[in-house]
């Protein structure tokens, strides 16, 4: 495990699990980049040049999954 990993501060996790809006927003913001990375795919056309394509549906789906996970998380 990398030691320099950016982690969410403990108090924020604590209040987010109880449904605090600001904390939940902080966590969503924290994983925004990761979700964007997961939902990005490279599409190729007939000239085999690649395009980055961000799947909005997948992004929304991941967002809701993360929200569900935050509320289900038990310390």
């Amino acid at each position, binding site marked *: 495990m990398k030691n320099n990993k950016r982690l969410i*501060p403990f108090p924020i996790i604590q209040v987010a699990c109880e449904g605090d809006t600001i904390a939940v927003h902080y966590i969503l913001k924290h994983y925004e980049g990761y979700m964007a990375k997961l939902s990005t795919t490279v599409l190729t056309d007939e000239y085999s040049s690649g395009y980055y394509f961000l799947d909005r*549906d997948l992004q929304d789906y991941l967002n809701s999954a*993360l929200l569900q*996970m935050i509320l289900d998380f038990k310390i």
Partner: protein
Amino acid sequence: MRPSSFNRVSLEENKHLMQDDFQRTTQFQFDYVARKTLIRSKSNYRRSRGRRYNHEALFSEISNIDLKMLPIFDTYHLDSQMYQVLSFNVEVRNNKIAKALDMLPERKRNTILMFYYLGMSDVEISNELKVNRSTVYRNRHSALENVKTLLEEEL
């Protein structure tokens, strides 16, 4: 000095350290669960997309016959004219024909409704109305003529 006593440190001193350790563990756990959830939901999404893809078809690729089966038109009884003949309710869908039928005398209208909408024969109609069979035939034909002229006038 025994090695075990060498390592022994009082609990009070280490309480904040233990707290720190617990918090750090929770942080890592949270991060792990979050990332795992995201990756799993991504593959879930991909799989459900793939499953749905087998049942999808482009509108342009559907044959014309199949496409005609898709739309549904509602029918409202308010749009059509109702007539009562021999305790049956006869529904006339076409507005123009209903208008023409309204103008006919009742006897002729009943003949037409019975013959064309209830599917009765001339003999059955003559038995019902207690008139001669040829009278029914004449009535029907003159009624049709009347309807024809009425419809032509409208056009």
